[in-house]
């Protein structure tokens, strides 16, 4: 584990976009540079985090007391443990630095644990969940702001593993990048992510629906995050959209394991 505060860190950059102060000069500078190349990146981060709020609030209202959060990032103010203070929560991230900060920010209590793991290694995460939740498998799952960092085959495997593992009545809240996959593959934005060695994988609507076929979607279904959050249609800047419609858009949904 290399905690080097002179190198930018994804979790802290994300926090900066959310208007947080858990970041350093190097993170802010990098974040601003990224914003110049991908102007919608900040708005996208906000849409995701706002969706997380709304979705988790609904899970809390449905009285879940165990939460598995995949790809947590920095669990800053207003994150799941704030919305569900009495719940048992398992946070996850692939990045050890983010995990170390997370532990330090919320403190590791008997209720809140962290597991550092690639989501692709879902079995290890589910084993940690069994240990932390004491065998309870009727749980709430949040998988927000991360599905599109995982290639399609692996994502399908992760969803299937979650489905097989969790008990009926469990719910999952998830955000997606959905749209014209071929158009996106040829776009400049896709090239930029590839260059940053963090490729982004979009899905066609049909592919996303197929992955969710076995789950029961709750109202309002699988819809664009700007609609979910009740903000403007056009959340991207004109310079980025040009004259054409962006190939991919952020979507969110909540579903029940039947």
């Amino acid at each position: 584990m290399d905690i080097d505060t002179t190198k930018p860190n994804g979790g802290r950059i994300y926090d900066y976009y959310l208007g947080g102060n858990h970041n350093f000069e190097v993170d802010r500078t990098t974040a601003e540079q990224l914003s110049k190349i991908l102007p919608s990146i900040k708005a996208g981060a906000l849409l995701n985090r706002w969706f997380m709020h709304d979705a988790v609030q609904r899970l809390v209202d449905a009285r879940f007391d165990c939460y598995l959060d995949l790809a947590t990032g920095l669990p800053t103010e207003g994150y799941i443990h704030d919305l569900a203070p009495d719940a048992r929560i398992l946070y996850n991230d692939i990045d050890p630095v983010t995990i170390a900060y997370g532990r330090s920010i919320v403190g590791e209590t008997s209720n809140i644990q962290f597991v550092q793991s690639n989501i692709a290694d879902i079995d290890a995460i589910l084993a940690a969940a069994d240990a932390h939740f004491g065998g309870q498998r009727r749980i709430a799952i949040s998988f927000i702001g991360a599905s599109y960092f995982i290639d399609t085959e692996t994502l399908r495997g992760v969803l299937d593993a979650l489905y097989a593992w969790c008990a009926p009545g469990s719910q999952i809240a998830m955000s997606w990048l959905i749209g014209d996959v071929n158009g996106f593959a040829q776009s400049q934005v896709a090239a930029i992510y590839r260059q940053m060695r963090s490729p982004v994988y979009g899905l066609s609507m049909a592919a996303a629906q197929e992955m969710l076929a076995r789950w029961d979607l709750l109202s309002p279904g699988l819809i664009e995050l700007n609609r979910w959050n009740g903000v403007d249609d056009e959340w991207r800047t004109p310079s980025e959209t040009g004259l054409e419609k962006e190939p991919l858009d952020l979507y969110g949904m909540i579903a029940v394991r039947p």
Partner: protein
Amino acid sequence: MTDRNDLERVAGAALRRRAFTNRGMLPPTHLADMGRELVGLLLDPQENLDHPAARMVARGLSFVSAQEAGLAVQQAALDAADLPMLAQVSGRMATLIAAWHKAELDGLRREQEDLREAVVRALAEQREESDRQRLAAERSQQEQDRLAALVTELSAPVIPLYDGILVLPLIGSIDTRRAQDVMENVLESISRHQADSLIIDITGVAMVDTGVVQHLLQTARAVGLLGATVVLVGINPEIAQTITQLGLVITEIITLGTLQEGIVYALRRRGLSVQAITAASAAAARQGTARLSLWR
């Protein structure tokens, strides 16, 4: 007349227009509530705006969106020619801005402190003591620089009040460095908003001395070069006396008693007549005109 429900709707819609300036913990679905609260802060009797402002900052509302909502409410008051309300809302906005900045700074300090602790703890797991201290020192220097920059940028907010009219509420003490910042900020805002009037409200200035007056005059001259006029308001009797005792004669700045009078004056300069539709606002408007004194 201005209906409370309408104002709340107007404020909520303005907050929503600026939703993306808010923080991650404030989903837009909460903004209608925020709009109602903000209208309450602007219109209802308030003892102290610090606490409510701090609460809103803590809940993730950005200054930009709060300002947009404040402007929308001012616009509604203006459309309804409700001058007393316009003046009250502008005054409250100025106070709120000061409270807001303080709350944002406090929040920033607190969170940076958290982060510093987090780093130190994380580092402690794997680094030598000496390494840790060196890094902590570098970090804290960077944070101080950022804080200093923030204080500077926050200490001289220029508020667009209406088309072409800007208000600069000055608060606290003014030294040369701050005066310089204020001046730059003002000139930039004037050209950005293509303003023709700048109302400087010095109600909140702790002390006025020759230096401050000198700075104000300099600003007024520079503003004049951009084709705009400075109106100075909020001179209390003590300050007026100081100015006289110092033997200073302000010939280049129009001075008026209150912010409200300043607004009336600036609107009239734009050829805007404020149609007072209540007896109270009619009286206020007449009074404003009567006391208009040009120290030229």
